[in-house]
């Protein structure tokens, strides 16, 4: 069987003079969890609304399994489970009647529906609130009802707009492990502005700002864009002449820049290498030769939030 593919080509959405989404193209395959990263108003939600058929693109195409969203919207909608931003539901219904309604609209047979409802209810832990009106539920439970609704028909494609927004740390963890459990047999696209989430669940991340894709890669690839990628942090026991130490460190081959982190209780420096080279061996060799007392030595992978800030703020300046 062919892998489910969500294919987005030159997608564009204009609201009057504002271009919310500006020529976005990408593909997602089965097994991938794609994280949509971007500042507020970057076009994340707008893109998701176009993929799910709620918004009509100004130009460009969205296809799921080869079905085009404007030509065969129902075929696409059948394959997608969608959690809109804020997890809207019908407040006067109970989670049970709501899920029954969704199951009916999704065309599940009575026995299928019963089985799926049992399954999703236990997956998102809704057992205790099944008979309470949704409007009386806490934010966390409302979000879970939204998730249950999205995965009820076991869709091939799952689109989640800020699935963990407003949840407490335990609930965030639960939702993330739920996503990870389902990742293998689905295409999952989720938006977030929590960068640790990208590490926790995404196999791939796209950074968008002002409606444009600015970066696309695995979380590790994105981190390697960081100036601190492969940087070495060295902490030494306090010595009399810190400036001499600094000079020696800068003189190590391939060290690009030295940043002083602390010189009061200990001597701590971050050394940035030239263009992604590794310098940890050279640094430890030098410390050994000089007989410094090393308190700590670590290699940094780079920080996603720093990459994110660099990428999104430079793009703002260009515009």
């Amino acid at each position: 069987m062919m892998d489910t593919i969500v294919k987005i080509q030159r997608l564009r959405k204009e609201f009057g003079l504002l271009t919310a989404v500006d020529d976005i193209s990408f593909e997602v395959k089965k097994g991938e969890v794609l994280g949509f990263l971007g500042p507020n108003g970057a076009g994340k939600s707008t893109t998701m609304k176009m993929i799910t058929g709620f918004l009509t693109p100004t130009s460009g195409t969205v296809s799921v399994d080869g079905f085009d969203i404007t030509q065969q919207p129902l075929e696409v909608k059948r394959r997608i489970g969608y959690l809109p931003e804020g997890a809207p539901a019908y407040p006067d219904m109970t989670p049970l009647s709501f899920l029954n309604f969704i199951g009916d609209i999704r065309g599940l047979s009575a026995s299928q529906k019963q089985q799926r409802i049992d399954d999703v209810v236990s997956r998102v832990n809704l057992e205790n609130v099944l008979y309470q009106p949704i409007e009386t539920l806490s934010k966390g439970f409302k979000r879970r009802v939204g998730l249950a609704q999205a995965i009820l028909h076991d869709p091939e494609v799952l689109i989640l707009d800020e699935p963990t927004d407003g949840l407490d740390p335990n609930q965030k963890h639960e939702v993330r492990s739920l996503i990870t459990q389902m990742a293998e047999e689905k295409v999952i696209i989720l938006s977030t502005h929590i960068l640790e989430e990208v590490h926790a669940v995404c196999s791939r991340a796209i950074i968008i700002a002002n409606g444009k894709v600015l970066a696309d890669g695995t979380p590790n690839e994105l981190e390697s864009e960081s100036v601190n990628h492969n940087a070495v942090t060295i902490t030494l026991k306090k010595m009399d002449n810190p400036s001499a130490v600094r000079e020696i460190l800068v003189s190590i081959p391939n060290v690009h820049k030295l940043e002083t982190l602390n010189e009061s209780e200990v001597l701590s420096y971050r050394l940035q290498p030239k263009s992604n080279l590794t310098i940890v061996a050279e640094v430890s060799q030098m410390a050994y030769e000089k007989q410094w007392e090393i308190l700590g030595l670590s290699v940094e992978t780079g920080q996603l939030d720093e990459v994110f800030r660099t990428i999104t703020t430079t793009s703002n300046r260009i515009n």
Partner: protein
Amino acid sequence: MNTWVLFKRELSSYFATPIAYVFIIIFLFLSGIFTFYIGNFFGRGQADLVPFFNFHPWLYLFLIPALAMRLWAEERKSGSIELLLTLPITATEAVLGKFFAAWAFTAISLVLTFPMWISVNYLGNPDNLVIFASYIGSLLMAGGFLAIGSCMSALTKNQVIAFVVSVVACLGFILAGFPLVLDFFSGWLPHIIVQTISSFSFLTHFQAISKGVIDIRDLIYFASVITFWLFATVIFIEMKKAD
């Protein structure tokens, strides 16, 4: 199929909230007042429900827009429209499901006026065929009002605006047959257009049916009014669903 699923959800949601009970009680209370006090039911000395049905257009003028205003405006406001319209359901199915649920609800309210029919049968020998036709006419007229209200509700996320605009539009459809409106047009519009305007009046057609004659033309009239406004609703939903 999807229309039926949505119909069931919508209809049960009326009864899950106080809307149903408030609406039914007010409807029964007001129709009682209108019939017995203002309509002088006993003083007329006739065994029929004419005073009861005569006030229906005016009762509907306020009650039906109040029922219809939430159809789409509430979905917009709460964001659930995004959920609904990304489910595998077409806008037409959604519009029909909601409309029929609201219409069925008014039918239920109308059925609950049966004590009126029992009283008049107890007191005399009315023409039950005429009464039956009047009920049909009243239900059709309610459908017309609802379709207008559904369209106005689709245009805004503000229920108050939906209500006010619907009342005005419905008033236009009631008054279209009144001299007040026709005189305004007859001065400067050709006779044929003034006639057309007058034929748009809900009152003209409702009163025709209330006489006990269910004329196919009156049925076609209400069917086309409902179809027209629901069609407009579908178009507005498709066009403006995300606004």
